[in-house]
């Protein structure tokens, strides 16, 4: 990956819009490239913010606000690890720019 600053300005977006939220458990089940994936509650909350509008920095701030007692450095590390995992699983595109289009050569070249 590039610098922390560059990572924070990225706007991750869900690759699949085929997902649902279990309103009893508040957990997301999504259809990924390799099957359905169930996220835990916090992962589900993060998932809802992966709409291509919010930057990673914004999501970190939301997390920090929700968990003020947690070590902020660790929280940032965990979040980036989680989003990277979703990206590697084919569930999320790390930096959505609509004119680049999905699977764009330019987009892939710019991806970490």
């Amino acid at each position, binding site marked *: 990956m590039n610098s922390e600053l560059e990572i924070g300005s990225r706007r991750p977006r869900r690759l699949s819009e085929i997902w649902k939220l279990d309103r009893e458990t508040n957990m997301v089940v999504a259809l990924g490239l390799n099957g359905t994936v169930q996220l835990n509650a916090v992962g589900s909350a993060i998932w809802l913010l992966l709409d291509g509008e919010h930057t990673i920095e914004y999501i970190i701030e939301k997390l920090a*606000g929700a968990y003020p007692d947690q070590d902020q450095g660790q929280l940032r590390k965990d979040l980036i690890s*989680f989003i990277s995992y979703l990206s590697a699983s084919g569930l999320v595109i790390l930096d959505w720019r609509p004119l680049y289009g999905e*699977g764009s050569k330019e987009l892939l070249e710019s991806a970490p």
Partner: protein
Amino acid sequence: MTEVLLIQPPSPTPNKLHVKESLLSAPPIALGYLASIMIGEGYSVEIVDMEILEMGAAGIRSRLEEEKPGLVGISTTTLTYRNALRIAAIVKEVNPMTVTLLGGPHATFAADDALSHPQVDFVIRGEGELVLLELARCVLEEKGDPSNIRGLSMRKPDGKVVHNPRRPFLHDLDTLPFPAWHLLPLHLYSAPGLIITGRGCEGSCIFCAARGIAGGRYRMRSVDNVLREIETMISALGLHFFFFADDTFTAVPERTRAFCNELKQRDLHTAWMCETRADTVDRATLQAMADAGCKVVQFGAESGSQKILDSINKGITVAKLREAVRTALEAGLSPTCSFMVPHPEDTWETVEETKALIRELKSMGARTAVSLTTPFPGTYLASHLSDLGMTLISDDTDQYNFATPVIETSNFDVWDIREIYMDMVLLCLEGSEGSGRHDDQKIRDDHINVIGGDKSERSKF
């Protein structure tokens, strides 16, 4: 130097990447027709399909710098509309003197909005071939006045938007040259053999804009003209699989049978697929299609509830759909039935009826697919949303991809809709090739080390 550059914008949604392997990609036939008629009049034309070339902003910018076109025409669907605007802005950045033009289904119904953007000079409403030709004469040769071109909308120097009178639909489609396929990288498409044998749709489904775009009467090319195009595509391009993209290929069954009989007689060794309505097929037609090489026929099924089918003005019955699927299978065809959800009056009960029909059709041997109801401009649905008890929850057309909920109904909120849609997608995929990939996985909790994972914590966001 290119005089006219025609651009197919890329889809903005990464959703398509997810299913890219399973989607048919077809070349932009409308741009092929536009290019062909322009070339016939002596203009130098190029087509750039940014989607298939996986081209982004930098790519189109360098292409514009290289080609230096005088006129740039950009095709729009609702999904690609905002990208069309973004591309038009790049055109003007590269050269403010280049004339920009938007056309296609979305621009046809959103000309005022398109022309509220300074980077758009003109909008073609409806069929574009003759409008583009007349505009090119004005722009590139300074012959004529755009104010006199029917089917054209423009912004006057005082900023006022003017819509010239609507242009009548083309009467004799045989007069059109075949699309300029040589301008497109056909080898990149999974379904390059795209043919339209007629334009217009006699249906009046509330969710569809086909009638508004191409008229409520099915205007057909002659059988001979279509067969000549097929023969040309075989000899010039080496294609043998064709996709007839008419809204209702079998709208006139006698003509369909005549076409199939002639195709079979010419012994061209072709295979093909088409889309149609269940109420326009019978045994003789489906058998003639199968005998002539048809492999797949797609029916718009929409719902398994007769009450819902009636409420959306579909004009078919569930019984007729079953009969069409059964007959197609008996003829040796592979039928595919496409459904939509949620319709304005859908309830949990009618959704269950649809699921039951999907199961039934699959057990018969049909394929099924489902997409989300989306209020596209030009549809009754879009212009009567509140009357139909629906609420628009997103006007961001970058999201209008058939898989993102952009409306709620009186019976379903967005979470209901996501649940219904996903369950139906999984139902459609069940038992199909590759469905083993839908085994459940769980994201391990250790991906979020610090934060717990119980339900209460989510409410903190």
